[in-house]
């Protein structure tokens, strides 16, 4: 009797809790008109991060690109297929070794009515390369440009200071977005940063920090009017909440569905899960100034002790691709012939013994605390490293501190997580900022050979020679094992079925021009 009673209680209690907790996570009204339908032709997107500064020269965040590609245009345009095509310029050609000429599109106006012409292009790049640009993180990407010269109202010349093999790609993103001269001169950069104006398919309506940004369709867009009337980006840092909002119909598109919730989205009849391989790669970097990470045998032991493939198959549920250098297969400079270091715990033990690392040695792995997938992977690594005799301590750090202080000031543990977008799809950007001595992201590491190969690939436009230099660089980094590249990230998008024409973009730039709702 008593026993039966206890069992009943247990049987009732556990599911009851789940129902209560589950109900908090996602409540779907039954019978009522779905909130998604009641929004009509306007679209709601939930994304993890609020970039806060909307000025293109003041940001380096993918979350900016997600919105920015709808507000602004560059001279060159890169869609979700990653192909470069004309944007605000209708064509371009090298008229001499260091002069790149652009023919501009006619009849384009900014959202505030200001006309787009050669002056706007000159203003944009003068601003980017001048003192205003020096305050932000974008200037460094464009220092190969010496200046921009106006030829006539619809023709400009880019006069180059140094060779830049990636310049056309760079003109399709971030700092190279064309901004309105009169508006910025009259209102100032600070106002522009919170009330952005561009030439894109959507115009700015309203922004509330850490809450939402609303855009309305620019019906006079040069490439045709958008099909949705308005779009609201809501900033929801918590992944489970984004999925819950999507399930409840309060959002149409959710960015960054965590792998742990992929099944939830997949199983929902009104939603579609869209995975897309991204240029983002995840790795563990070593800080060689912190013993024993200065010892190459220790670093190689770590690469042999962690079973990355199993982590990808289980924790990432296959949503990730193993990489051997810190770039995705989409990246120019990737060497597919390099095989990732194999999982071999015996070898790891042997290397540790050779390096004189005593069993039970404490090593620390730092990572940003909001990265749920890596947090799980890191905990699996604790167990894996324990079996080769290392005690791994995990140090989650609040993400803003992590990127603005911990990494640039070398305050991490011997190992730290690092993710990198590589949006130019050319290894140059990644490799230079991460391995060139003294860069913001590279406070410690330096190697003469690495510097040599970087110099080689930067100093020529000859793509064959560059590829060769990259291959040599790949090999050198691989041999040094200064970092441990783990996987190429597969981004998961959750989309309500009422949304048509949505293409999951590898670079997070969600183009809304041809998206419509039913």
């Amino acid at each position, binding site marked *: 009797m008593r026993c039966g009673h206890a069992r009943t209680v247990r049987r009732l*209690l*556990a*599911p009851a*809790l*789940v129902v209560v*907790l*589950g109900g908090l*996570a*996602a409540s779907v009204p039954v019978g009522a008109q779905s909130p998604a339908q009641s929004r009509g032709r306007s679209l709601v997107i939930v994304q993890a991060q609020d970039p806060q500064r909307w000025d293109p020269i003041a940001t380096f965040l993918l979350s900016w690109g997600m919105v920015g590609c709808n507000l602004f245009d560059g001279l060159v345009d890169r869609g979700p297929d990653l192909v470069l095509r004309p944007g605000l310029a209708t064509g371009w050609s090298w008229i001499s070794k260091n002069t790149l000429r652009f023919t501009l599109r006619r009849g384009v106006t900014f959202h505030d009515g200001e006309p787009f012409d050669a002056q706007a292009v000159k203003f944009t790049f003068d601003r980017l390369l001048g003192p205003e640009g020096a305050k932000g993180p974008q200037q460094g990407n464009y220092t190969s440009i010496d200046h921009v010269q106006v030829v006539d109202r619809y023709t400009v010349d880019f006069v180059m200071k140094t060779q830049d093999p990636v310049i056309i790609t760079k003109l399709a993103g971030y700092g190279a977005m064309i901004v309105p001269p009169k508006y910025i001169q009259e209102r100032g950069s600070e106002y522009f940063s919170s009330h952005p104006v561009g030439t894109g398919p959507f115009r700015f309506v309203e922004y509330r920090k850490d809450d939402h940004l609303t855009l309305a369709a620019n019906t006079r867009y040069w490439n045709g009017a958008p099909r949705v009337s308005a779009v609201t980006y809501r900033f929801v840092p918590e*992944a*489970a909440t984004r999925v819950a909002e999507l399930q409840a119909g309060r959002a149409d598109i959710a960015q960054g569905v*965590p792998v*742990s*919730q992929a*099944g*939830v989205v997949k199983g929902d009849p009104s939603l579609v899960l869209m995975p897309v391989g991204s240029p983002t790669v995840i790795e563990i970097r070593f800080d060689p100034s912190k013993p024993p990470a200065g010892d190459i045998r220790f670093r190689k032991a770590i690469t042999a002790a962690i*079973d990355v493939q*199993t*982590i990808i198959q*289980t*924790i990432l549920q296959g949503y990730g691709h193993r990489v051997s250098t810190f770039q995705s297969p989409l990246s120019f400079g990737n060497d597919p012939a390099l095989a990732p270091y194999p999982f071999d715990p015996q070898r790891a033990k042997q290397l540790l013994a050779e390096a004189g690392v005593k069993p039970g040695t404490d090593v620390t792995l730092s990572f940003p*605390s*909001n990265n*749920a997938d890596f*947090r*799980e992977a*890191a*905990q*699996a690594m*604790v*167990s*894996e490293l*324990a079996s080769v005799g290392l005690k*791994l*301590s*995990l*140090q*989650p*750090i*609040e993400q803003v*501190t992590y990127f603005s202080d911990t990494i640039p000031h070398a305050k991490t543990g011997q190992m730290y997580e690092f993710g990198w977008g590589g949006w130019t799809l050319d290894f140059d950007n990644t490799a230079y900022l991460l391995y060139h001595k003294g860069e913001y992201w590279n406070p410690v590491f330096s190697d003469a050979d690495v510097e040599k190969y970087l110099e080689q690939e930067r100093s020529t436009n000859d793509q064959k020679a560059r590829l060769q230099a990259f291959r040599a660089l790949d090999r050198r980094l691989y041999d040094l094992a200064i970092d441990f590249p783990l996987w190429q990230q597969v981004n998961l998008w959750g989309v309500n079925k009422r949304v048509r024409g949505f293409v999951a973009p590898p670079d997070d730039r969600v183009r809304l021009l041809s998206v419509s709702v039913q």
Partner: protein
Amino acid sequence: MTRAAEARPALSALPAPGRRRTAPPGLRLTLALGLVLVGASFAAAVAAPLLAPRDPEAADLRARLTPPAWARPGSPYLVGTDAIGRDILSRIIYGARVSLEVGLVSVAVSGVSGTALGLVAGYYGGWWDEVAMRLADLQLSFPFILFAIVVIAVLGPGLSRIILVLAVTQWASYARLVRSETLVVREADYIQAARALGVSDGRILWRHVLPNAVSAVSVLATLSVANNILLEAALTFLGLGVDPSVPSWGGMLADSRNYIQTAWWDSTFPGLAIMLTVMGFNLVGDWLRDRFSPRLQG
């Protein structure tokens, strides 16, 4: 209390003073339940290596999110595994260590320091009293979670920081409680007598004043243990607490929240562990309060 008991025998309808000391049967049952729950969590913390069926940190990725044994007969994991493939039962048993350590140490530190300050403030009054009580006001007016985030942002996360945060934010409650008890007692005849006999202040505080405050402090302390276990879980849930690989109940909840719809056991059992332990401390605390310190009844 003695005086009240002496007055009572005149009314024959009331139970004799001796009888009053035993609690009514309902109260005894809840006390027993409380003691069992608290005892169980202590046993888990002390004897974790003996009780836990497995290593709480050993992950078997291929066995991740295995349901409890009754839902999947033949599974070696009684209440299932988490997202890394670790045994949830073993982690709950080891997790009791973190919870109790935080609960007890933070209460001990804040209790002892708060009591000492309260005694000094209440007994000497004047300048001492002003400084201690204004500090207490300052402390009590500062939002806890903001303080916790600031401290952890500056010092970095960790068990010792959590204990520090809890201790620093809670001494004021003890100080106020003890001060008020001291204010009452210090005018009592026997204190005056002791003073007249030349007994030192330290001895008066220790032997005559402190014993009067102990019962109230112990009630507050017991209830605070429960509260602090919850706060530890909350801070760890927010990522401000202990190293994620160290088994702790709050950390387990944080790690499992993404699986709440697909693997209910991952969050349910750590949640139950917190609930039952906190309930145990609360039941014992309530009983202590009813028994010793009727004035604290809300």
